[in-house]
């Protein structure tokens, strides 16, 4: 059943220009960043940590909500949620299917950045295990933002509202753990507050994966920031009906 929903959502992404547009924008932005600000050709960063992966959360905070905003907002605007709600399947089936479809769009986008991996392998002698770990980290950040956007889209039938609110949340999560921001914050707030704010941010966990480490706290962080919004989606959809 989940697969049926997954297939429908995925073909709906690729039946419209949305997915293509977002994938192309992602590829362009990530390449522009890598080659201009990232100074890819000069710094010789073969792990891709600073030149390539560093930019991903910044791009995702704007693009991931654009992918996931329609998931429930559209369903509520057109009333098709009433069809889903009267099919003999649990709402979880739909939540999972939709989430996996959106995640697949990002997986495709990430896989299409393969030329950069070929390039570093051609130019130098990188640690491909670390690059793979960087990709996993990047994908998990995307999944986190998708799950959060899905939660927001369950709250509204308006895609634009959903986009604005989710971008705001994702931007906050990117800024929260960012070094410059943390430095400024620590001048003004107590260490406990700084730590609490930083723990909401993606950087700590994203960086450790970039360096090829997978710590328990990273697994827990990503798992909870993906699963909790999905649980929330289910709770909001049921609450809206009663």
């Amino acid at each position, binding site marked *: 059943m989940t697969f049926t929903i997954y297939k429908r959502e995925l073909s709906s992404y690729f039946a419209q220009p949305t997915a293509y547009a977002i994938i192309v924008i992602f590829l362009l932005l990530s390449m522009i960043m890598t080659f201009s600000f990232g100074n890819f050709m000069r710094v010789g960063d073969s792990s891709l940590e600073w030149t390539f992966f560093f930019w991903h959360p910044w791009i995702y905070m704007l693009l991931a909500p654009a992918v996931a905003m329609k998931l429930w907002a559209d369903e509520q605007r057109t009333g098709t949620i009433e*069809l889903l709600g*009267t099919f003999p399947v649990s709402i979880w089936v739909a939540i999972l299917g939709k989430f996996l479809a959106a995640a697949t769009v990002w997986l495709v986008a990430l896989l299409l950045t393969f030329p950069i991996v070929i390039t570093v392998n051609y130019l130098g002698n990188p640690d491909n295990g670390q690059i793979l770990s960087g990709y996993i980290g990047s994908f998990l950040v995307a999944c986190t933002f998708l799950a959060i956007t899905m939660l927001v889209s369950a709250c509204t039938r308006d895609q634009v509202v959903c986009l604005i609110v989710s971008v705001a949340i994702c931007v906050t999560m990117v800024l929260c753990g960012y070094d410059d921001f943390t430095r400024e914050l620590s001048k003004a707030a107590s260490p406990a507050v700084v730590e609490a704010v930083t723990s909401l941010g993606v950087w700590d966990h994203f960086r450790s994966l970039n360096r090829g480490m997978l710590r328990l706290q990273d697994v827990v962080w990503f798992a909870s920031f993906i699963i909790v919004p999905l649980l929330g989606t289910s709770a909001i959809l049921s609450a809206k009906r009663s």
Partner: protein
Amino acid sequence: MIEVENLTKSFGTKVAVNNLSFSVEKGEVLGFLGPNGAGKSTTMRMVTGFIPPTSGDARVCGISVVDQPSEAKKRVGYLPESAPLYNDMTVTGFLNFCASIRRLRGSAKKEAVERAIETCFLQSVARQSIDTLSKGYRHRTCLAQSLLHDPEVLILDEPTDGLDPNQKHEIRQLIRRLGETKTILFSTHILEEVEAACTRAVIVDRGVIVADGTPTELIEQSGTGSLTDLFRQVTTRDTAAPGEKKKSGKSRKKTAKAGA
């Protein structure tokens, strides 16, 4: 086949459906009449398991929608009010999707989709994208979706709303034909439909049943030989002034007595 027992639904302080009870026997086509806002859609949404009742229960083929929603939903085909569809799919694609969700596979699925397309006269648009369909075809596509799993019970919310007279006629014919083998509950505020398609009708007003009977009985009850008159007597107009409301309240008592 459908048993509705003391079904109540409140939205905040607003009571949309108030302690409603009725039943639809096998082979009956029950017309569910009432002015806009009477609570028809809310009742149907509860019977189909889309929204949970505040209190009370509904049973489909003896299965409670509150206790065993999945089992009950398997036996029901539902056409929601505005015939919602996934606009980015083709008619066949959409029906295939709905059939898969209804756990139909392989040749059973193919046959079910073909049968539904035939029943609802969708052959000419089967490969067309749904967002290019006219309203009549949209309605019929959504209706086809409700027939895929050959349900024992059909619940249709304003199946003829917004259609032209030819299309209305076709849908009524279809309902009558389907009614030969299925139990149907359909809502409408068009009174000719009652005589054209129903074996029995109930009129609801503000969440309460105010009249119940076969079309002939209801016409007798009206006293003037017109269903419209009965409808106007027993239901509240949303523009009614307080004085008028009292009057309609009185006449309601009269008709209730006449019905008893």
